[in-house]
C-alpha cells in the first residue's frame, strides 16, 4: 500500500524508535524497574502481540485483491456495500424454555421489546430426537429450550405470530428436517406458503460430532439429510437459510480464534463437497449457506477473525468450487457473544464483557447478533437480564457510532496484520484437514476434537496459574452472596408434555401415521429426497421421536471416537 521509498523511511523510523526504546529499557533496568508489566503479550487466543504495528506489517497486503470494497469480492470489508447504514443487524435473542405455551409468551414479549427476529432454543430431547415421554428424556424436558414433540406443539409455539412477517432461526441439527417440516406445516395452516418463509436452521452436524454433542445418526446419512434439505429448500423454500455452519460451539469447546475459523470453514467445505456430489450446482445452494460465530473479549482479534473468515470463504467458493454468483461467495453470519467468557462470580461484570463482544461482532460486520445475558453462567436467563442484553445491542447500534460507517477498523496496521495472520493460520489448518481427507474424516479420526481439547486445557491451566486474568474470578474477587431471582423451569414440564403427547395420540389418525412412517422407512432405505415424506409425516402428527425412531432404525446411531 506504500511505495518503496516511503517504506524505507518508515523502516528507518522504526529502527530508530526501537533503538530508543532499548535504551529506555536499559535505563529502567539499571534502576531495577521493569519496563513491561508482564513477560509476554498475547491475544485472547494466545498469539504473540508486538509492541507496535506500522505500515511495514501490512506492506505485503494488496488492498485491491485482499481487502477491497464492501459488497465486493473478497468481501473482507463486509457483504453489503453500505452495511449498517441501510439497516442494523438483526437483533435476535436465542430463547425458548419449558413448554410451547411459555416460550410463545416470551417470543411475543421479545417482539414487543423491539427484537427483529426469533431464535428458537429447543430442549435436549427435541435436539436428539426423543419425545418427552422417552426414558432418555428424564429430567431434561423443557430445560435448555422448549420441548417440541409434534406439529401440535409447534402450532402453539407460533400461535399469533405471523410467519410471513418474522424470520425465525432454529437451533436444531440432527433432526433439522423434522423441525423444518413442522414449521412449514404450521405456516401452511396460517395460510402462508413455503416460499414466503424466511429463517435459518442450524443443520450443522459436523460441529455436533466435533464440539457440541447433539448428534444422532452416523456421518453418511446425516450428510444426506443435509443435502436433501439444500435441494428441497432451493426449490420450495427459497428464502430459507438451509444451514448455519457454526464455529460458535467449536470456540465454546475451547478452540482458539484461528481454529474457530478454520474448523468452521473446513466443515463448510465438506457440506459444499457433499452437495456437489449429490448432484447440485454450487450456485443453486451456496447463497443460502450461512455461518455462525462466537465473539470473545479480545476485541481486535475478534474483528480480525470475522474479516479473515469472509476473505477465506470468498476465495474457497470462487477458486475451489468455481462459484459464479457473487452471493455464493459471501460469508453471511450470525454472532453470539461468548458464553464461556461469562463468569459465575460477580455476574454484573458480564454485562461489560457482552458489550465488548457486541462491539467486536458489529465492527466485524455481523448480519445478526444474540447477546448473552449476565446470568447465563448460573442458570437460564431471566426476562430482566435478557432485556439488558438486548439493550446492549441497541446502545451499540444507536449510541456508539460504530455502525455509522462501513468496517471502521480497516486500515489499522494491527487489525489488518491480525486479519492476515488468522487467515494464514486457518489456511494451514484447512490444508492439514484436506490431507486427512476432509472434515468428516478429520472428525472421525478425532483430529479436530483433539486440537480443540488441547487448546481448552491450555487455557484452563493459564487461568489457574494466573497467567491469564479473568476479572472477578481469579483476580479482584469479592465475597458474594448467592445470586437471587434465577429462572427455574417447572419440574413437572416432563409430565405435562407426556400428557400432551398421550392426548394428541388419542386424537390423531392412527392409520395415516402408520402409513407415513412406513413410507418414510422405505424412502430412507432408498436414495430419494427425504424432505417430502418427513413433511407428510409431520402433517399427520407423527411425533418427532417416531420420525427419528424410524430413521434411527434405518441409519443406526453415531458412536463418538474417544479423544482425550
Amino acid at each position, binding site marked *: 500500500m506504500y511505495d518503496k521509498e516511503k517504506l524505507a523511511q518508515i523502516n528507518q523510523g522504526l529502527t530508530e524508535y526501537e533503538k530508543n526504546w532499548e535504551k529506555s529499557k536499559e535505563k529502567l533496568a539499571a534502576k531495577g524497574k521493569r519496563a513491561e508489566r508482564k513477560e509476554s503479550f498475547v491475544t485472547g487466543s494466545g498469539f504473540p502481540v508486538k509492541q507496535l504495528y506500522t505500515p511495514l506489517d501490512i506492506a505485503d497486503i494488496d488492498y485491491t485483491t485482499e481487502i477491497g470494497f464492501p459488497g465486493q469480492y473478497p468481501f473482507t470489508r463486509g457483504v453489503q456495500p453500505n452495511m449498517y447504514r441501510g439497516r442494523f443487524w438483526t437483533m435476535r435473542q436465542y430463547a425458548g424454555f419449558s413448554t410451547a405455551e411459555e416460550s410463545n409468551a416470551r417470543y411475543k414479549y421479545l417482539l414487543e421489546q423491539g427484537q427483529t427476529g426469533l431464535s428458537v432454543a429447543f430442549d435436549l430431547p427435541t435436539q436428539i430426537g426423543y419425545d418427552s415421554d422417552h426414558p432418555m428424556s428424564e429430567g431434561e424436558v423443557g430445560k435448555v429450550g422448549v420441548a417440541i414433540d409434534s406439529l401440535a406443539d409447534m402450532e402453539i409455539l407460533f400461535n399469533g405470530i405471523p410467519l410471513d412477517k418474522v424470520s425465525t432461526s432454529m437451533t436444531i441439527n440432527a433432526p433439522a428436517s423434522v423441525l423444518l417440516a413442522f414449521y412449514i406445516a404450521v405456516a401452511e395452516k396460517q395460510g402462508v406458503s413455503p416460499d414466503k418463509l424466511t429463517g435459518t436452521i442450524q443443520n450443522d452436524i459436523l460441529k455436533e460430532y466435533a464440539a457440541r454433542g447433539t448428534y444422532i445418526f*452416523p456421518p453418511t446419512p446425516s450428510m444426506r439429510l443435509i443435502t436433501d434439505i439444500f435441494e428441497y429448500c432451493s426449490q420450495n423454500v427459497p428464502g430459507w437459510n438451509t444451514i448455519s455452519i457454526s464455529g460458535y460451539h467449536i470456540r465454546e469447546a475451547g478452540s482458539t480464534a484461528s481454529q474457530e475459523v478454520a474448523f468452521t470453514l473446513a466443515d463448510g467445505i465438506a457440506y459444499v463437497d457433499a452437495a456437489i456430489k449429490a448432484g447440485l450446482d454450487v450456485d443453486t445452494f451456496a447463497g443460502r449457506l450461512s455461518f455462525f460465530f462466537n465473539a470473545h473479549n479480545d476485541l481486535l482479534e475478534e474483528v480480525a477473525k470475522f474479516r479473515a473468515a469472509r476473505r477465506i470463504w470468498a476465495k474457497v467458493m470462487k477458486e475451489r468450487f468455481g462459484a459464479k454468483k457473487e452471493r455464493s461467495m459471501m460469508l453471511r453470519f450470525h454472532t453470539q457473544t461468548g458464553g464461556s467468557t461469562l463468569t459465575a462470580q460477580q455476574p454484573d461484570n458480564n454485562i461489560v464483557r457482552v458489550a465488548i463482544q457486541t462491539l467486536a461482532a458489529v465492527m466485524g460486520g455481523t448480519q445478526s447478533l444474540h447477546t448473552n445475558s449476565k446470568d447465563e453462567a448460573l442458570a437460564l436467563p431471566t426476562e430482566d437480564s435478557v432485556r439488558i442484553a438486548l439493550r446492549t445491542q441497541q446502545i451499540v447500534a444507536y449510541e456508539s457510532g460504530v455502525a455509522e460507517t462501513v468496517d471502521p477498523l480497516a486500515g489499522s496496521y494491527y487489525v489488518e496484520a491480525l486479519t492476515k495472520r488468522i487467515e494464514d493460520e486457518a489456511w494451514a489448518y484447512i490444508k492439514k484437514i484436506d490431507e486427512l481427507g476432509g472434515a468428516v474424516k478429520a472428525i472421525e*479420526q478425532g483430529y479436530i476434537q483433539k486440537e480443540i481439547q488441547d487448546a481448552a486445557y491450555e487455557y484452563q491451566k493459564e487461568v489457574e496459574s494466573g497467567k491469564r486474568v479473568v476479572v472477578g474470578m481469579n483476580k479482584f474477587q469479592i465475597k458474594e452472596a448467592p445470586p437471587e431471582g434465577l429462572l427455574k423451569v417447572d419440574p413437572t414440564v416432563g409430565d405435562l408434555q407426556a400428557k400432551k403427547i398421550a392426548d394428541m395420540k388419542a386424537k390423531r389418525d392412527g392409520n395415516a401415521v402408520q402409513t407415513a412412517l412406513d413410507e418414510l422407512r422405505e424412502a430412507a432405505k432408498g436414495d430419494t429426497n427425504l424432505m417430502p415424506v418427513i413433511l407428510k409425516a409431520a402433517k399427520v402428527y407423527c411425533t418427532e421421536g417416531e420420525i427419528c425412531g424410524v430413521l434411527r432404525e434405518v441409519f*443406526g446411531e453415531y*458412536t*463418538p471416537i*474417544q479423544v*482425550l
Partner: protein
Amino acid sequence: MDLVQQVREGNKVAIARLITKAENEAPEATAALRELYPDTGRAYLIGITGPPGSGKSTLTDKLVKEIRKRGKTVGVIAVDPSSPFTGGAILGDRIRMSDLSLDDGVFIRSMGTRGSLGGLSKATHDAIKILDAAGFDYVFIETVGVGQSEVDIVKTADTTVVVSVPGLGDDIQAIKAGIMEIGDLFVVNKADKDGAEKVVIELGQMLELNQNMGDWYPPIVKTIASTNEGIVGLVDKINEHLNYLANSGELIKRRKERISNEILNLILKRVTTKITGKLSEENFWENELDEILNKLKNPYDVTDRVVDEVLL
C-alpha cells in the same frame, strides 16, 4: 459374606473390589487368589491388540455382543498406558462399550499399566483369574499394541487377535515381525476404507514368509466393526481356533507355558522385593556407592556378596 465366595457367585461389587485389592497389591488379594485358584482355567482367554486408532474397543464391543447372543458370558479387561510422570491415566475404552454396562452377563474393567513398562502387569493377570473364577465363559484382554504389551498378550491369552487398519502410514511396519508369528487371527478393521485390500495382501505375504507355522494357518478377517460387518464370521473363527487348540493339545501346551512364565515372574518379583528390601535396610546405596565410585570396590564383588547373602 466372604469376598471369595461372592466372587465365585459372580457378584460384581465383589469382583470389582478384589481386582482393586490385587491392583493395590493388598495381602488379602494374594490370599483370595490362592483360594480361587482351583476355580480358574475354565474361561477362554482372548487377547485383542492393535495400534491406536485401529478400532479395538469398537471391535471388542461388537464381539462381546455377538458372543452374548450365543448365550455366553464375557469379562473384558481394557488396559491403557499410565503416565510415566504422574502415574495418572485416562481410561476411555468404556465409551465404546456403554450399552454393555447394563448387561448382567458382561463385566468390563479398565486398568492402567501402572509402571509395568508397557507390558501387562501382575494385576492384569490377577484380574483375568478373578474373572475366570467368577465364571465368565470368555475373558477379553484388550491392549494397545505398542511396546511390550503385544508380546505379553500372547503369553497371556489362549487366542490372540491382531487388529490392523488401512491408512495408518506404514501399515505393516506397524506390526512387528514378532507379532506376525504369534497372532492367531488377523483382523483388518475399517475394511471399507481405501487401502484395506492392500493391508490384506501385505499381511498374507508376511504370513507366507513365516516359517514357524504349525497346523493352524492364521486367517485374515475383514471387518467394519462400526456397522457389525464381519463380526459373526470373526467370532466363528475365534471359536474355530479354540477347537483347534483343544483338539491339537496346543491349549494345554500354551497354558503350561503360561503357568511356568507366571511362576517365574512371581519368583522374580519376590526375589526382587527381597533384595531391594535388604539393600535399603542396610543403607547400601549410601555406604557403598562412594567406595565403588572411588574404585575401592568394584560392582562385581558387591553383586556377588549381595546375591549370596540374600539367596543362600
